[in-house]
């Protein structure tokens, strides 16, 4: 409900209510679209035993990597954990201190979309016959093997957008859009970190990417520079 749209005063207020054991969807593809201020607030908030769903598993020592380093994440679902500067994750993984589920990136995206779209499960050709389909139900459709994949729902989604209006309609900026629009649909509570909040009616209705119905809280932060 849009009168529930809350324009939070700071990132800590924006992420309040995240409890131990929550599943947190975190937008971003590398640094682009990563809601750094919200992830930092999540770390300061101290919730533990989190399941994090995000494309990557953190870079360097800040943002998602800092959350991992703080030992707050029990499990991560992502497509590409290993990167040149993913040493925080690498160390946790190698020492058995974090669970990892690797999903092909398109299956990860489609599973998040499915959660938001009320799709119970879907058959995808991606990953069929590979290690990532092991133990999964499969079916031949039109002569091609498909894997049954299930939705990924979040208790909370933390995303970065460009502008919000006061109802919560969102537009994005270039490739920082990435997982934001689908994660916004897939969580019980969606929080967007934005560059600017503009008056309702300012955004062209033809260009809104995330309609207000999907957004519960916004917080204005200065653009992160990677």
């Amino acid at each position, binding site marked *: 409900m849009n009168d529930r749209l809350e324009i939070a005063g700071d990132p800590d207020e924006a992420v309040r209510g995240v409890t131990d054991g929550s599943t947190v969807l975190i937008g971003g593809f590398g640094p682009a679209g990563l809601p750094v201020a919200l992830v930092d607030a999540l770390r300061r908030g101290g919730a533990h035993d989190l399941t994090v769903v995000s494309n990557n598993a953190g870079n360097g020592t800040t943002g998602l990597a800092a959350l991992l380093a703080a030992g707050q994440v029990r499990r991560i679902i992502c497509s590409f954990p290993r990167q040149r500067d993913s040493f925080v994750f690498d160390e946790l993984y190698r020492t058995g201190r974090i669970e990892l589920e690797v999903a092909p990136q398109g299956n990860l995206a489609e599973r998040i979309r499915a959660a938001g*779209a009320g799709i119970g499960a879907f058959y995808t050709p991606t990953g069929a016959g590979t290690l990532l389909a092991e133990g999964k139900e499969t079916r031949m459709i039109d002569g091609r093997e498909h894997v049954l994949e299930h939705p990924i729902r979040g208790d909370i989604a933390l995303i970065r957008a460009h502008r919000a209006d006061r109802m919560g309609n969102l537009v994005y900026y270039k490739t920082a859009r990435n997982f934001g629009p689908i994660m916004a649909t897939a969580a019980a509570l969606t929080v967007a970190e934005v560059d600017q909040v503009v008056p309702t009616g300012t955004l062209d209705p033809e260009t809104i990417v995330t*309609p*207000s119905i999907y957004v519960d809280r916004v917080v204005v932060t200065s653009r992160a520079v990677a």
Partner: protein
Amino acid sequence: MNPDRRPLDRRELAARVARDIPPGAYVNLGIGLPTTVASYLDPSAGIVLHTENGMLGMGPEAHGDDIDHDLLNAGKVPVTELPGAAYFHHADSFAMMRGGHLDVCILGAFQVAVNGDLANWHTGAADAIPAVGGAMDLAIGAKSVYVMMDLFNFARDGTPKLVRACTYPLTGRACVTRVYTRHAVFHIDSAAVRLVETFGIGGDELALRLDIPLVIEGEHGA
């Protein structure tokens, strides 16, 4: 009880439904009777209307120069756009419905059963042309499904439309949460049908005429 009060007229019914829509709710109004609810929503309550053909923030029906045949509601009637509106394609619109994001949808009905089953798309008659539109998606998708209908089938034999089990083909199972009629308002949950309010008929008489298990608590009627 206030059995002396007359049943609601259609406008009062629409206003009664409107009163139960929470401020800020995202709402879909089905074709026909439910559309009339729009006129009774408090403009300051921030209620946002969804139309299945790809829009949030739908405004009132368009008139005169405002008519644009590319800006229609689900009943194909020209409408207007409010500040904060957004357009999206059909898969996104029905993802919004199926995904449980709408707070309330209001539908007409042929029959509602005591367990919340809804029949509103097909009379089952042999010569009827089936046409479902978005009814099944709305029935199973919204957080709350309100039905607006006559309590008795006045067009035919006067039999009740709130029934033990639907005899018409179903639109959705166990999905209706509230039933609004000119004679009474009912709340349905997994346990029972509860009488919320009556208009011009007593609760006991209603229970008798409906021939369904009905929970009547305390006083009813305005």
